[in-house]
C-alpha cells in the first residue's frame, strides 16, 4: 500500500521530530525506557544512539520494501525488520561495548517494543521515498535522544552532583577523567535517581516545553504554526 502522500519538506521534518512532534515530550512514545534508563546522561546517550540506529535501519528497509508491502503482511514485516535490527545491535554491543550492554540491561532488547519505531515505519516510511524516510528517522531519533540525554543529565546532576559519570562505558578508558563533580550531593536528592525522580523530571520537562510554546504563540505570530505533516495512528 504505497500511495506516495505529499512529502513534507526537510525543514518541516526536522522541526517536527526535534520539537513540534517530538516523540518523547509530545507524542510520549517509548516512555518505559525513557524513564528507566535516564538516570545518567551516559546511559541516556547509549540507549538514545541504539534507538536512533534501529530507527534508521527500520525506516530505510520499510521505505525500500514499499513496492512489495502488502496490507496483509506489512505489520509482520515491520516486526521482523525491527526485531532483527535490535538483535544485531545487541550482538554488536555485547562484543564491542560489553559494559554499556550490562548497564542498559533489558532495555536494549526492549527497543523492539518501542512504539516510536513501528509508528514511524507505519505512519511515515511505508508511504515516503527513501531520502525523506532517512530524514524522518534522523530527526525523530535525535528528538528522542536529546530528551533522554537531557533528562539523564538533570537527574544525575540533582541526584549525585555529577555530569558524564561512567563515560568510559561508552567512550573507553580514557573517558574516565571526563566526569565532572559539580558538588557533593551527599545523597540529599537521592529521589532524582530513583524511578519517582524520572516522573518528576519528565513532568517538569513537559511543562517547560508547553510554557515555551505558549510564549511563542503569545508573541506576535511571525511564523505561523506549521501543521503536523503526518498523522500518527500508533500512540
Amino acid at each position: 500500500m504505497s500511495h506516495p502522500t505529499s512529502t513534507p519538506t526537510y525543514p518541516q521534518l526536522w522541526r517536527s521530530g526535534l520539537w513540534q512532534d517530538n516523540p518523547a515530550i509530545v507524542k510520549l512514545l517509548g516512555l518505559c525506557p525513557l524513564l528507566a534508563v535516564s538516570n545518567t546522561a551516559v546511559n541516556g546517550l547509549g540507549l538514545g544512539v541504539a534507538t536512533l540506529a534501529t530507527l534508521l535501519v527500520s525506516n530505510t528497509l520499510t521505505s525500500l520494501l514499499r513496492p512489495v508491502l502488502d496490507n496483509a503482511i506489512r505489520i509482520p514485516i515491520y516486526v521482523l525488520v525491527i526485531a532483527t535490527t535490535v538483535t544485531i545491535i545487541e550482538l554488536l554491543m555485547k562484543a564491542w561495548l560489553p559494559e554499556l550492554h550490562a548497564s542498559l540491561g533489558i532495555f536494549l532488547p526492549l527497543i523492539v517494543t518501542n512504539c516510536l519505531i513501528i509508528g514511524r515505519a507505519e505512519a511515515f516510511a511505508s508511504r515516503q521515498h527513501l531520502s525523506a524516510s532517512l530524514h524522518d528517522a534522523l530527526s525523530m531519533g535525535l528528538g528522542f535522544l536529546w530528551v533522554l540525554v537531557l533528562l539523564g543529565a538533570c537527574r544525575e546532576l540533582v541526584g549525585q552532583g555529577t555530569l558524564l559519570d561512567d563515560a568510559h562505558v561508552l567512550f573507553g578508558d580514557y573517558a574516565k577523567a571526563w566526569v565532572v563533580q559539580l558538588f557533593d550531593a551527599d545523597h540529599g536528592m537521592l529521589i532524582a535517581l530513583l524511578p519517582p525522580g524520572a516522573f518528576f523530571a519528565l513532568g517538569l520537562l513537559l511543562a517547560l516545553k508547553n510554557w515555551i510554546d505558549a510564549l511563542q504563540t503569545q508573541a506576535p505570530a511571525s511564523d505561523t504554526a506549521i501543521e503536523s505533516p503526518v498523522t500518527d495512528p500508533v500512540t
Partner: protein
Amino acid sequence: MNTTGTRLNCRAGMILGGCVLCAMAALWLVQSMTQERIRHTQHARQTESLLALLPDGPFDNDPLLSVQWLEAEGLGSRDPVPVYRVFRNQQPLAAVLSVASPDGYNGEIQLLLGIQYDGTIVGARVTQHQETPGLGDDIELRRSNWIQGFTGLSVTTTRAQDWTVTQSGGQFDAFTGATITPRAVVHAIHRALLWFEHNRDRVFAV
C-alpha cells in the same frame, strides 16, 4: 473460490517468507562474526574479576577453567555455586567463592570472595545487588573503598562477636543511613569463612 485473492495471498506469503529468510541470514552472519569476540570478552571480564581476588600469579591453571560446582548452604544458596581454585606447584593456593547474602535491604546481595588456603581473605567484591542507590550501594568498589577493609582478615584475626557493624558492637563501619546492607555483607562473609574452614578439602578436591 476467489482466485485473484488466493494469488494475492500466495504472493504475500512468498514475500513474507523471503523477508524471514533474509532476516535469518543476516542474524546468522552477525552472530558468527561476533560469537568469538563475545566469548573472548566475557572470558576476559570474568578472568579479570577473579584475578583481582587472587594472590599474585603465576598459577598452575586458568582460574576460570578450574571451576567446581558445590552444594554449599553455608554460602547462602540452595543451588550449587561455582568455586574457582588456583594451584601453584600442585599445592592448593587460593579459591574464589561465590557468596550470597539473603538478608540485604532489598533482595539478595551476591559477592565474590577470594580466600587463601590458610583462610585469610584476599579480597571481596559485590557482583549483584538491588540496595538503595546512593545509600546501600557504597558496598560497591566503584562507590567507596569500604569493601577493601576485608582484605587480610580471617576468623583467627577477628573474633566471632566482632564480625558485625559498629552499631551492633562489631568492628565494621556502617554507612550513614544504611546499616542493614553492610551488616548483611559482613555476616555473609563471616559465614563463608566459617564454611571454608570446614570444607577446605572439598573446595580443593581435584
